Every structure is written in structure tokens, then in C-alpha cells.
């Protein structure tokens, strides 16, 4: 029996790629657009491309805000990708100040560089330094040091608690490129678009999800 993973559809992200990647890893991605549905799953992915403010607002309007908090407190696995990952944090500063889901204390800020050779968005394959926490080892099980993953973003997260960070990357400065803390995982990069290694992270996630 293939494990079922819910993918929250809030009208923006490229959900098809995540379904394809889950399928490749032996799980079934199920698109959900109602907050009531997520409690039926043991694994949920919050994807996302687009802007922080409107997306956070949409999640709240549709009741996903509370549903995700309830879901997480039942200790079931959650993975946020790119904007979905940023939405985990307390506040975002994309076109004004917006409240996020506040699952992880911290902020989301824009890359700003003096050096005009550092183009924004940060687009492309960048490597990661994996931290040594137990959760980080689960997330990056069987993934070597300095592997490359695909990023496309103009904002980066600043978690308050160092212990929740599972990897760092470098673009103009060091930034947190993923978190893994208990049942909450998330990455700024796109595992579904990062070739074999990205698929491995999704497999690691699926492994943590109860059947």
C-alpha cells in the first residue's frame, strides 16, 4: 500500500512536479484544498511559489492556519518547500510586514547586496552544509556533504533557534537553507527539482511518515 501524502493547494505552486516526485519515490501525492482534509493524512507538504503576504492571508482565510497547527501538534510529519518553508516562520517582510504560520520562531528577509554581481533572485544549484542534529541526520540520510540542490528565491529565513537548522548555504552571506525539528521539515531549495539527491530527501520524508 503506497503512503498518501497531502499537498496543500493554495492556488500558486507547481504542484504537478511534487506529485511526480512523490510518485517516483513510491508515494501518492493527494492535492487538498480544504483545511478539513489534512487531518486524514500522516504526511503533509506545504509547497509554494509566489508572494509571502497573499499566500499567508489565503492560508488563514481558508482555515489552514489553525488546521496546520492542530496537525503538527499531533506529531505528524510536515514538509515546507520554498515559500511553503518561509511561511512556517513568524514574520515575512515581502512587500510590507506579514504574519506567517509561526510554527518556527523567526523571520523572512530579502537578500540585499552591495555587490551587483550577486543577482536576485538567487536562482540555480547551490551546495549545502548539513548540521549534526539528529533530525538533520534523518532528513539528509544517505546524502553526502556538499551536494547541490536547486534554489529559486529572493528572500531567506532567519530562525531564532539555531538547533532547528538542518543546513546552511552561501549566497553573498551564509543563510539557513533547511530546517528539521521533530516532525517539521522544510527547505528553501526544491527537493522535487534537485535530481536524485532531492528525491532522496523526499524518500527520507516518506520514511518518517506513518503508513
Amino acid at each position: 500500500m503506497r503512503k498518501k501524502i497531502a499537498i496543500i493547494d493554495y492556488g500558486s505552486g507547481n504542484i504537478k512536479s511534487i506529485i511526480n516526485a512523490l510518485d517516483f519515490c513510491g508515494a501518492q501525492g493527494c492535492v487538498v484544498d480544504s483545511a478539513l482534509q489534512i487531518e486524514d493524512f500522516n504526511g503533509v507538504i506545504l509547497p509554494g511559489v509566489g508572494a509571502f503576504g497573499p499566500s499567508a492571508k489565503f492560508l488563514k482565510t481558508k482555515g489552514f492556519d489553525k488546521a496546520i497547527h492542530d496537525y503538527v501538534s499531533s506529531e505528524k510529519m510536515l514538509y515546507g518547500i520554498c515559500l511553503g518553508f518561509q511561511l512556517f516562520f513568524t514574520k515575512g517582510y515581502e512587500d510590507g510586514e506579514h504574519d506567517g504560520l509561526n510554527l518556527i520562531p523567526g523571520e523572512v528577509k530579502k537578500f540585499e547586496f552591495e555587490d551587483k554581481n550577486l543577482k536576485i533572485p538567487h536562482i540555480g544549484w547551490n551546495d549545502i552544509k548539513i548540521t549534526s542534529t539528529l533530525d538533520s541526520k534523518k532528513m539528509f540520510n544517505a546524502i553526502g556533504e556538499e551536494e547541490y540542490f536547486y534554489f529559486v528565491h529572493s528572500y531567506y529565513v532567519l530562525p531564532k533557534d539555531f538547533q532547528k537548522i538542518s543546513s546552511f548555504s552561501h549566497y553573498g552571506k551564509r543563510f539557513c537553507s533547511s530546517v528539521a525539528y521533530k516532525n517539521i521539515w522544510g527547505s528553501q531549495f526544491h527537493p522535487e527539482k534537485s535530481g536524485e539527491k532531492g528525491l532522496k530527501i523526499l524518500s527520507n520524508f516518506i520514511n518518517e511518515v506513518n503508513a
Partner: protein
Amino acid sequence: MLGVRIIPCLDVANGRIVKGTNFVNLKDVGDPVEVARQYGIEDADELVFLDIMATHENRGTTVDLIRRVAEKVFIPLTAGGGIRTLDEIRSLLNAGADKISLNSSAIKDPEIIRRANYRFGRQCVVVAIDAKKVSENKWNVFSHGGRFDTGLDAVDWAKKATEFGAGEILLTSMDKDGTKDGYDIDLLKIITNSLTIPVIASGGAGRVEHFAQACEAGASSLLAASLFHYGELTVRQVKEYLMYKNISVRLTK
């Protein structure tokens, strides 16, 4: 370190990958999924699919091609060629494309850039510019596959496209395209120096050295088509040379 991206560009017609020059003697080069998978194995960082028919009738076959490739190849995919409407963009993204590239339609009405950005996010909007030198240090933008001189200055248009919400510029030198003489370094420098968003260099790659020159001129990514299709160079060979030149690249094995 962010790696410089190497991007093979694949011409598609009727849902197949084709090779040929100037729309004549098009040869089917095989199953799109297999070709894409092979490039993935070679460490291509991204793939661009250019619909060379670019007709409304052919769009469905391109959407289907993207759908099939996206099921098996897990790297970023860009679709371009004759895209005119938000509906077309939506169907390509829903099929599994990560980005779409706009050219003539954006020249005709730049608002499409703004609308695509607002609806789908900056990260998926690539504006393709076909530029041709018209005088010393001046390049004009050509539309409709390079057939018409729009009179627009390439630097001005690239800046305007950025303001309207492009996430990346795909810059093709019409003077260099097909020459294998190297990318247009002057054009690249003038454009990359004027922009804050990444630029993909296209047109003219013939040897490994050309890729390194374009990086030094400020390109974030390097696109090539025939060079890779005809097996004159592999993506891997290009990346190994860049590594030798101390330019950061992603090599998996």
C-alpha cells in the same frame, strides 16, 4: 557556492524533439523523455524546450511533451516559443514546467510580464530577448524569431522587462547564433551590468573556452543547442573545463 548553470536548449515540434536549420530538414531525434533523461544524467542543470512551430494548434503537443518529461526528469524545465496568454502559461506550468519564456508577446504588450508575475510569481517568468548589433555598442531587439527589428534598444528593453517583473533574461545574440564563434561578450557585459536579475547567455557557443568567457562577462547561465545535440561537446566536458577555470559548477559523480 552557486554553480553556473549549463542549459541545453531543445527544439520541439509536434511533441517531438527535432534538429534542423531554419525550419528545413527537421529531423526527429527521438523520444523527448529519453533525450531529457540523458541530459539529466550528464548533469545538465536545467532544460529549455523551445516550440519552433509556435502555433496555437501545436501548443497542446508541447504541453503533453512537458507533462511526459516532468514525470521522469527532476530538474527545472522551461518552456518557450510563441506563448501569448496566461491560459497557455498556466497549462504549461500545470503540466510540470517550472518557468515559461516570453518573447514577441511581451514586446507587443509588456503587461503580460506583470500579469504572469502577479499570478505565478517572478521565479517562473523568463523574458527572452533576441538582440542584434545595429551600431557601435548598440543592440536592437528583434521579434518573431528574429524577423522584425522592433527598434527597441536591448538594454532599455531588458531593464523594462525587469521592472515589469521578469525573473531572468534569456539573451540571444543573433549575430553570434549558429557561428560557434563564442558568445557575444560585449552584449553580455552591457546587459548584465545594467541588470539586477540573472542573465542566461545564448548564441555562439562552440568550444569550452566560450562558456568560461561568458561567465566572466557576467552570465549566470549558459545555454547551447546544436553543440550538445550533435555531441560535439557534452555538458560534462563543459563543466569540467569551468571547474578547471575555477568557476563553480555542479558535478554529481
